[in-house]
């Protein structure tokens, strides 16, 4: 029983991380129908941004987590947002009206570029880098179940930020503009919505969430490497597809489903941890066979 509870906790934490990244995939797809494969790298770059911020801090601030930790989040988010805005402006905007394949391939190119850029220019990024110990140590012990404080923080941030995002998109004026652009960009333009602003804002939101995820990833797992964006990006993309690309709620639920499948299948399915990825994709395929639009996706949408 305690093993089951521990695995459920592990799965929820993994899901929380994937959810933060998956939101970026799903929002961008919702607005411009682009699978932004470079989004995983935005998450990776944010992690290095947070680490760089810490490295640049004066020594006495390094010792005070209450100052260093928020600054690392700010640093990570700023780097992520800058990268995302530059990426949107110079890589995707010129291709806005190009056939869909062009921006998709550009996204792959941007992804390779970001990975290599960090590898070449970040000191010692050729191998794993340890993350500073400014995060709360230890964790919650419920009987034999251990949950690290960083894991609790990760789940809290993930759920909290998703709710804020969902509310913003449903309630605010800008959120309405985003939904309008997603439904019909041309009509939205006629109604006075500036599509460029909406799209940039979408990229910024995704980057902020990826920034939080990047710094939390370092804190939770204690070290980062340049491949982390690829690996987690694949999971996040899968989560977005599972939940229905374009749906905020779907991406979050899809992410938690994937986190839980990974830990539970590793524990209970034949083949154990060697085949845990297999079950993730088995579930994905089954869902797509019976519900091609994903769990919460809209069945069809006529586009202009």
């Amino acid at each position: 029983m305690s093993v089951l509870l521990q695995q459920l906790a592990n799965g929820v934490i993994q899901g929380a991380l994937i959810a933060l990244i998956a939101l970026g995939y799903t929002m961008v797809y919702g607005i411009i129908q682009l699978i932004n494969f470079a989004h995983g790298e935005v998450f990776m770059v944010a992690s290095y941004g947070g680490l760089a911020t810490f490295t640049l801090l004066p020594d006495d601030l390094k010792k005070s987590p209450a100052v260093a930790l928020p600054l690392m989040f700010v640093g990570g988010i700023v780097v992520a947002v800058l990268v995302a805005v530059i990426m949107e402006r110079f890589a995707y905007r010129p291709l806005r009206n190009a056939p869909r394949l062009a921006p998709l391939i550009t996204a792959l190119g941007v992804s390779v570029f970001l990975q290599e850029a960090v590898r070449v220019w970040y000191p010692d990024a050729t191998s794993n880098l340890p993350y500073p110990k400014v995060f709360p140590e230890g964790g919650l012990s419920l009987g034999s179940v251990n949950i690290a404080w960083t894991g609790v923080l990760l789940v809290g941030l993930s759920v909290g930020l998703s709710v804020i995002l969902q509310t913003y998109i449903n309630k605010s004026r800008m959120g309405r503009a985003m939904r309008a652009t997603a439904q019909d960009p041309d009509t939205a333009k006629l109604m006075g919505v500036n599509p460029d602003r909406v799209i940039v804002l979408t990229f910024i939101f995704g980057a902020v969430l990826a920034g939080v995820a990047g710094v939390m990833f370092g804190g939770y797992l204690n070290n980062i490497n340049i491949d982390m964006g690829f690996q987690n990006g694949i999971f996040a993309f899968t989560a977005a597809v599972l939940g229905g690309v374009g749906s905020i709620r779907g991406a979050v639920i899809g992410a938690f489903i994937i986190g839980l499948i990974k830990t539970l299948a590793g524990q209970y399915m034949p083949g154990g941890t060697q085949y845990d990825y297999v079950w993730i994709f088995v579930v994905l395929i089954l869902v797509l066979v019976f519900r091609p639009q994903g769990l919460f996706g809209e069945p069809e949408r006529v586009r202009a």
Partner: protein
Amino acid sequence: MRKHSVKSAAIVGATLLVVAACGSNKEEGGTAGGSCDTSKGTLTVGVVAPLSGNLSALGIGIKQSAELAVDEANQKCTVKGYKLTVSAQDDEANPAKGAQAATKLSTDPNVVGVVGTLNSSVAQTVQPILRDKKIPQVSPANTNPTLTRGNDFLTAPKRQFDNYFRVCATDDLQGPYAANYLVEKAGKKKIAIITDGKTYGAGLAAELSKQVAKKGGQIVGQETVGEKDTDFSGVIAKVKALAPEAVYYGGEYPAAGPLSKQMASAGLNVPVMGGDGIFDPKFIELGGKEGDLATSVGAPTESLATAKAFVDAYKKKFGKEDYAAYGAFSYDAANAIIGALAKTIDGSAWDESKRDAMLTNVGSYSGSGATGEVKFDQYGDSTNKVLTVYSVTSGKWKDVQTGEFTG
């Protein structure tokens, strides 16, 4: 995966340009040993190792140690009439990249031998390419026994590649040696195994588990993690339920360090033990904790009298002692190639017809190197079968037991 091929294509392209620009330049004046006769041109010692990526700390140690050996040979005019250079190729610890690197080296008529690879899985693709061109390959670090003696290495050993040699002991010694230490010395009877499923890690763990059973210990569980996995919480929870007294990790330090750290925070406070793949300072930096164990090939470099000259020279040339786990082995491997080359050439000129003699001379090479005696048996394995157990003590690897595996 497709991202990787794009990336590597670009890198290989760039590398080719750079190497083409500086390769086979016979006029290049040597900075060292200006007094040597280098009128016949330049010959190249190839290096294939991971120079980028997670294992680059080990790979760069291999490359620089080979460079040191070549520099010294140039200074001492070891190979008459020729200047030696090193051509180091990055294999990114990836068998496909290793094959590209080997192909590139094998098409250069001036390459007389190759030091490498680090990974046993990469060696599997490099071996046949170099064999076809009769280029000797001397590995400082491959520990998988099948590379020299085939799949039935214990019952029916058979030489696999007549161009392949190595200067380090193998996993059929390393795994059981670790098992003996765990069960007999440390008194850990219940052992859980986690591997990354690659040639090296899985092979090492398999050899360990056989010996654990023989010594009366018990393997309570066996799990596999993905090579790029970063969150091991699922595996750890599963292993924790089996209440092991120690966890043996078959794989390398980029995963082993974080694994050890995550085990501790999940409340599984037992030592992690691994092979030479986790024996690196980076393991501790990435989360390896006090009391974690590793076996490695050879005696501790710092403790060997024969190694002192190497360590001093390395420090003088590169400023830091970052020769890593295989530096001394790589230095010996390069010297075996250089020694055999000197014997092969012996005043004559190098050409393709010398390749057979070169292979024979590497096979019969005998010298005293940084790791002790360097000699090869009939399979190409090192006759030096010394192994050492290390333990993390006050944030550093400290040797606790050195010896040969005796059963």
